[in-house]
Each structure stands twice: as structure tokens, then as C-alpha cells.
């Protein structure tokens, strides 16, 4: 199987981000993306993919607590785990970046995609806030 950019009336490109900071993320929670662009399907916590897609997600964190959060992430496609990523958040106000993200590949359209926290240490709740979560997608055809 090979992939190439999708051909049609939709751009192959879509993206989404969260317009406000998110705090108190726990294991199993979703990193919100409430502002979709070039993708119409959106419900709380994620997007509805309208085609086979490759997606990359990352987040930008900040925090005020005295610990170093380590966060393991993945995507969930209709509750099926897809991809893995790792994030280190710092312990200082207005802290740090993102950039360590994860990729997902959907098999078909109409799948609910969520960017999820699977493991957080040392505590099960992120002491750091998430300034912005971002996902970038490419519609493809196989």
C-alpha cells in the first residue's frame, strides 16, 4: 500500500488547536482541540476525520508547580490506540514547549480522533498546564 495526497475539493491539509489553556490533565484525559481548521467534523475533545489521514500532535505546556511532569501520549481513533509520543513539561511559570508529539494514521474516514494522555509522572495529574495543544493532519488516499 502506498499513500499520496488526496485529490478532491478539500485541501489535503487540516489542523486544529486549543484556544485556551488546559489544566489538571489526568491519565486518560484528552488534550482539547476546540478550534478546527479545514476540517468540519469536531466534537468536544477531538475531530472527526473525513478521510484517511496522517496526523501529528504536540502541545505547549506551562506550569507553576515544583515538579517535572513527564507525559506519555497517544492518539485514540474510535478508542483504538494509535501512535505514541512523549512530552516533558517544566516546573516554572510560563515554561516550556511541546514538540515531542505523536503520529496517527487512520484507516478510513469518519473516525473520532483524540489526543490522549496515557501516562503522567511523577503524579497522575499534570501539575503543569497545557498552553496549547495542536494537531496537524494530511488527508491521503491509499
Amino acid at each position, binding site marked *: 500500500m502506498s499513500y*499520496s*495526497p*488526496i*485529490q*478532491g*475539493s*478539500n*485541501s*489535503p*491539509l487540516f*489542523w486544529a*488547536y486549543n*484556544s485556551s489553556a488546559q489544566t489538571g490533565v489526568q491519565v486518560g484525559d484528552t488534550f482539547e482541540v476546540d*478550534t478546527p*481548521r*479545514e476540517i468540519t467534523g469536531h466534537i468536544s475533545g477531538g475531530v472527526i476525520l473525513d478521510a484517511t489521514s496522517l496526523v501529528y500532535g*504536540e502541545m*505547549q505546556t506551562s506550569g507553576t508547580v*515544583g515538579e*517535572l511532569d513527564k507525559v506519555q501520549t497517544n492518539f485514540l481513533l474510535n478508542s483504538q490506540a494509535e501512535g505514541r509520543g512523549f512530552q516533558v513539561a*517544566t*516546573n*516554572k511559570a*510560563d*515554561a*516550556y*514547549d*511541546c*514538540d515531542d508529539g505523536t503520529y496517527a494514521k487512520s484507516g478510513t474516514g469518519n473516525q473520532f480522533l483524540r489526543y490522549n494522555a496515557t501516562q503522567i509522572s511523577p503524579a497522575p495529574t499534570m501539575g503543569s498546564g497545557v498552553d*496549547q495543544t*495542536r494537531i*496537524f493532519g*494530511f488527508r491521503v488516499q491509499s
Partner: protein
Amino acid sequence: MTYQLFSGTGTTGTAAKPTRLIELTSGINRSVSTGSALILASVRATDAGHGVTVNNTTGEISLPAGYDYYVQASIEIDRNANTESFRIAFTDSGGTEITAADGGFDCVYEWHSSRTTNNVPNFTLSAVYVSKNPLSSIFLKCMSMTSGSVMTKETSIIIVQVAKS
């Protein structure tokens, strides 16, 4: 509007408007500070005719009209001191940062005081500009950066140029 596939033959392609990948690199380390543009003027592409150019003096990246763009910078900075922080973002031609609402996503590194991390390898950060209605001219700029820091030659930009008609 119809988006077009790379429909050429072989590795060079003959399609009038293929989707292209374009790589921008520097080849050398460059000193940077607040306000500096990252200059990545060596251009490679999967196909000729993309029209993307980089000013080797100013760092201005010109994006021809008629395409959607996904522009991802992978940035490595040697900070001048372990305690330094920095932020890098895409800007318009006037130096104004492109915000998330317009498809600009910055990258930030902030050192934190309680855990000193000496002698650790650099890591890369990514900044993104993505748009269906792209600006014709963008810059990748240091919004905050202490003098004496260096953008390493490992820094690069990958541009996905999607044709539409």
C-alpha cells in the same frame, strides 16, 4: 477547486502542478539574537518549479500564490548559557508574529531554575505555519533569544506545497 496529485512519471514528474516537498537548510551555524531571522537559504525540492525562494541576507521566505502550504521548522539552538530561554515564531514581512488564528504556531524553550541540566544534548523544537490563504512572504524569527546563541546547521524547514486549481 480541485487539488491535484503528483501525477508525473519517474522521480522528476511532469505534472503541471504537483504537490511538492521543499527543504530549506543553512549548511552552517549562525549566531542569533532577539529579532534575528533564521536564514535557511539552501533549497532542495522534490520537483522543480515550486518557486519558493529564500533571501540569503534577510531570511525572507517567499511563497508563490496558488498553493496551500504546510511549513514546519525543526530548530536546534545552542544557547549561550545553560540558564537561557528562547522563543521562535513565524512572522509576516513586517515582523509581526503570525498567531494560531492565522496558522502560526511558535516554539518555546524556557529553562527552569530548580533542576540544572548541564551538558545535555540539544533537542529540536518545531514551529509551524499552515495556511490555505498563505502570506506571500514570511520569516522565521527569534522573538526572544540571548546574544551569543547559535542556530545550528541541523536546523531545517520542510515545506509541503499543495497545488490547487
